[in-house]
């Protein structure tokens, strides 16, 4: 019985909540429910991890990527990179597909909204590497992929797909003509 108990104890998930703030250098965004978190993890294709529907190279930057945390096997979902620019985390994580990494950033927890293990990644490095890579590559990669959209202003004002959607359906989605009275009144 003693041997059985030892085996089961070894297999049981950690009961105590772990403090991932130790050693974190993450900058606060003053968000409700944020907490600094630095941890080791494996970068995984979430669709593959959840359903078994896998793609080579984690989808090459097209699929959402997760962080399978080494300490407790929890699948952390990075929603955001470090730029205040409406940009996700996939561009930052894609070069590390399938690799063991260390990340630093902010966990978002809000039980009222169901937010759990949501993450804003600020920097990343291969496990054991001395150098960090800042998770702020999105805008540069967008510019490389959209040379025809070169110009002034932030990427989201120049993105051809976004511009096409707004031209067709307006800023509110109800249609450019239908929203005209609202916009006129809003800026009066």
């Amino acid at each position: 019985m003693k041997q059985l108990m030892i085996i089961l104890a070894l297999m049981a998930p950690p009961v105590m909540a772990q403090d991932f703030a130790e050693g974190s250098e993450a900058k606060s965004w003053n968000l409700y429910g944020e907490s600094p978190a630095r941890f080791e993890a494996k970068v995984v294709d979430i669709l593959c991890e959840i359903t078994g529907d896998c793609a080579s190279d984690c989808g090459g930057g097209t699929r959402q990527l997760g962080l399978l945390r080494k300490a407790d096997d929890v699948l952390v979902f990075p929603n955001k990179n470090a730029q205040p620019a409406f940009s996700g985390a996939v561009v930052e994580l894609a070069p590390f597909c399938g690799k063991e990494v260390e990340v630093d950033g902010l966990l978002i927890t809000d039980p009222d909204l169901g937010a759990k293990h949501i993450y804003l990644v600020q920097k990343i490095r291969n496990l054991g590497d001395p150098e960090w890579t800042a998770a702020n590559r999105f805008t540069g990669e967008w510019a490389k992929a959209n040379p025809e959209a070169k110009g002034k202003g932030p990427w989201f004002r120049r993105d051809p797909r976004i511009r096409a959607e707004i031209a067709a359906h307006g800023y509110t989605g109800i249609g450019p003509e239908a929203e005209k009275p609202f916009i006129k009144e809003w800026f009066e």
Partner: protein
Amino acid sequence: MWKMAISALLMMLGATAAQAAGGERIQVKGEIIDTWCYYSGVMGGPDAVVGSAHHTCALWCSAGGIPVGLLAEDGTVYMVLKIEGDANSAGGDTQLKLASHEITADGMFYRRDGLNYLVVEKVVTDHGITNLNHEDYGPIPGFAIPDPTK
């Protein structure tokens, strides 16, 4: 004794495998939202970061690769991983065109570590943008609509 230990071990391994491979077929109605603004509160409360008030920001975030979710009528958020065969969940066209739309989705539901995941096999109905809250909240964020007088 060792037989008991091995049996327990196999049962636990079996349960883990079943969780990974499992999934439940569901049909759910809700709005395609930008999960970062919703979860983080960076733009304000949950009622302000949905619907027509937040449509432009939802486009920005979807195109920027922020994951989209389906906010169901009961308040449950499902992280959407695939829509009608399109697995481009990081900025793909299918999800971009559904930003802020209310849809009825048929697909497979999974749960892992406290988050809900949805693989949409079919958009049964695209109801369009039904939450017309821009008159109540104005554009969220305030600079979403450029000032036409400038």
